[in-house]
């Protein structure tokens, strides 16, 4: 449904006519993110300043038009999909790094700054930005803050919310505010903490102040093979139980390893049931000691063919394989569907065997490549969209996998967000009272529901969950 001409005119006045897109062909580019479901926006607006964002939102508020903030569109949960039409607020032209303060170790960036670019620029000062989603070459800091994104190195360093010091935000009435900043313990309620990870449903983010960390002088990266995914899972738990928290601890199963090896030739052992990529960093003394300890634990848990990167280039290659794994899986099937449920780490063997069974039941190839140290799964269901009726199977399998996660005491998403695709599952982990408390917060920030409507909360007008009831586990009693 096209926006009224008068509204489009207003938008053009605010951002300039070249920065409003409303032709049917061009809108297609903004139809989806990296998840499955898409929906066309009625218009795309590309602001360059906070003032423009505020004016656009005021217009939307006046006419009750949905506004969906959007960064690079790399999200995996439909967070940036304009499911109810309206305006896609594309912030990628707000891409300046406004300030890097090497003394305070902070950076102020606009929301469209690409994650990796910030670390690259900061590296000349011996600093880096810790959250490192696998899409970091493309994804934006604004999108990361909206989704509270993670990444392999969040095991040690924490996720986005632990690194955002403050934000400039535009609320649903078009008002502009700073929330938090570089002072610890501010007075009042922690609005910044609630807005990070709110998936564009409570504000548009126009500036972000983030913490930078000193680049560790020494890094050690180890690849280890395991006979099975279960033995690798036990090894992960054993590392953590030994009191070692590596910077990253990633797992790839055989399917993934073979695809990655064919693509990157990173020297991954293709005969292994699973491989672990473990990284420790710090000063040379600590990386040496910690890596020796990690090797010992892995060896005691059937790890073999251990290989430590000897040069930065080798390390990069190992990581390229991991971060590019999902792309490499395109060799097997052209499309993928990916959930990112989290289980308590000790439940990894159980949940992975459930994932395997579900894949077999639906006759769908599944590849596992994930943040094992955090218990954060990424079962990658591969398929060919051209196959008739396949989506039904794929979604069914995805649902059952998430159900298995929840039944083992886990959560629906570790870093991708609830967005569109997991909103229907929210009642699995939250009671009506829990959800109602969240909705109260939503109404405070956006009483008319114009900001990214149709996300996070279950939408009764959408399809209802139908479980085939294959997984026999009962949901564990709530822990309180």
């Amino acid at each position: 449904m096209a926006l009224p001409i008068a509204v489009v005119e207003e938008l053009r006045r605010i951002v300039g006519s070249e920065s409003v897109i409303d032709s049917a062909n061009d809108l297609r580019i903004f139809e989806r993110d990296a998840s499955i479901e898409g929906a066309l926006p009625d218009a795309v607006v590309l602001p360059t300043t906070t003032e423009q964002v505020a004016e656009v939102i005021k217009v939307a508020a006046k006419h009750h038009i949905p506004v969906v903030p959007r960064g690079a569109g790399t999200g995996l949960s439909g967070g940036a999909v304009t499911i109810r039409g309206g305006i896609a607020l594309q912030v990628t032209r707000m891409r300046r790094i406004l300030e890097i303060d090497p003394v305070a170790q902070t950076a102020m960036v606009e929301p469209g700054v690409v994650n990796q670019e910030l670390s690259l620029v900061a590296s000349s000062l011996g600093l880096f930005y810790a959250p490192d989603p696998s899409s970091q070459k493309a994804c934006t800091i604004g999108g990361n803050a909206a989704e509270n994104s993670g990444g392999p190195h969040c095991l040690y360093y924490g996720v986005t919310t632990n690194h955002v010091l403050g934000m400039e935000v535009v609320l649903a009435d078009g008002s502009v505010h700073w929330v938090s900043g570089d002072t610890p313990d501010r007075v009042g309620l922690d609005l910044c903490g609630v807005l990070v990870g709110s998936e564009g449903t409570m504000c548009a983010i126009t500036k972000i102040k983030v913490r930078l960390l000193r680049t560790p002088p020494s890094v050690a990266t180890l690849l280890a093979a395991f006979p099975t995914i279960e033995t690798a899972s036990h090894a992960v738990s054993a590392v953590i139980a030994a009191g070692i928290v590596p910077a990253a601890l990633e797992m790839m199963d055989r399917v993934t390893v073979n695809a990655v090896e064919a693509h990157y030739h990173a020297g991954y052992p293709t005969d292994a049931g699973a491989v672990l990529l473990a990284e420790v960093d710090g000063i040379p003394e600590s990386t040496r000691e910690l890596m020796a300890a990690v090797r010992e634990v892995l060896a005691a848990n059937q790890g073999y063919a251990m290989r430590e990167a000897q040069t930065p280039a080798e390390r990069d290659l190992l990581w390229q394989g991991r971060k590019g794994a999902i792309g490499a899986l395109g060799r097997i099937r052209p499309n993928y569907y990916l959930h990112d449920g989290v289980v308590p780490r000790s439940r990894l063997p159980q949940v992975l065997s459930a994932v395997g069974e579900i894949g077999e039941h639906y006759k769908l190839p599944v590849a596992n490549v994930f943040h094992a140290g955090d218990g954060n799964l990424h079962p990658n269901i591969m398929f060919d969209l051209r196959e008739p009726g396949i989506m039904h199977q794929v979604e069914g399998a995805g649902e059952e996998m998430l159900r298995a996660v929840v039944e083992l005491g886990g959560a629906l998403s570790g870093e991708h967000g609830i967005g569109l695709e997991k909103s229907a599952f929210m009642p699995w982990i939250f009671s009506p009272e829990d959800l109602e408390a969240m909705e109260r917060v939503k109404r405070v920030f956006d009483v008319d529901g114009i900001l990214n409507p149709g996300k996070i909360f279950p939408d009764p007008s959408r399809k209802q969950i139908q479980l085939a009831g294959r997984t026999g586990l009962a949901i564990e009693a709530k822990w309180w």
Partner: protein
Amino acid sequence: MVKKPHELGGFAVSSRGPRAPVVEKPKTAEELARVLHQAAASGSAVVPVGGGRSSRMGGTPLRCDVELHTTHLDRVLEHSQADMVVSVEAGITLEALQEELGKAGQFLPLDPFNSPGHTIGGLLATGWSGPLRQRFGSARDYLIGIRVAMPDGHLASAGGRVVKNVSGYDLMKLHYGAMGSLGVIVAASFKVFPRPLHDVTLAISTGSMGEAWTAAEQALSMPLAPTALELFSDGHLLVRFGGSPDAVKRMVAELGWKQADASAWAEHSRTGLESWARIAVPRHALREILGTLPEKARWWASPGIGIAHWDFDNSSDAVVGVRHAAEKAHGTLVLMSAPTEVSKKIGAWGTPPETIGVMRRLKKAFDPEGTLNPGRFVV
């Protein structure tokens, strides 16, 4: 070195209100929620109480009809050692929780002042932290789940018991540091940490504050960052390094301070005063702000964090001046404990934030009748 342990335990908030409140000590979260709901429905004012260690923080409650104690909600609900996650009821003391975690070689890196006796609920509600924040962040960073009783009688949870979770809004952040203004925390889950393989405490006494700040910067810029660093107004410094033995040993050798007993930290955490304020500023501004304190003022600071605590000796005029300087540096000065006449005169919190309007709307959404802690917080 500032050392003036002052027992504030058992301090009754009620003594600041006009009449004796009803004391309720529910045994379950459900019962607590019922009591809260009944109070709200009858227009009573409720002051939640944990260990009473931070009961002087904030403004004097305008009314207190019901003191709602979490004392009997003191169970460890689940400690999954392999997952390094713990869920507890809010009334458990920090010490009891540490004892449980210690059995598995784990700990919660929280070391608040005016210890012992803090409850987990109280610490979350006040947002107090200690020196270990230098390395581990505050409880805000490792709080992964929360359950809260609300004035409408509902119990609402957010988060979960996994270490990484973006399912739904992060209401942990909303209740953390909210002074019980939106609900009463009844349970919480945390990501916990393994005890460092090696843990060393070093100390040095310097001849001047200039030397002391230089020493602090030197310690902070060591290749292995300290897990804690405290600077005292008498020029004394305490630093702690944790990690792999060889790395820690190298820091000890390079820094060249004398080794001290780790009990210095426990002793430090017992510091609690009758009149003390917390100064929080961007870290690089801390030295300058502390320079505005009266001569011979007693304070201790975490230079790597940007926080200092000041024994202000009831001199409210001086407090106003320092608060002004702190706020000018985009920081805050908050009264941790003060005689009622002082907190009434200068206010516990200082200038309200620009977003106070949004905060008031949140308060209204969760506590429409103003049942919880009226007058104590900024909303």
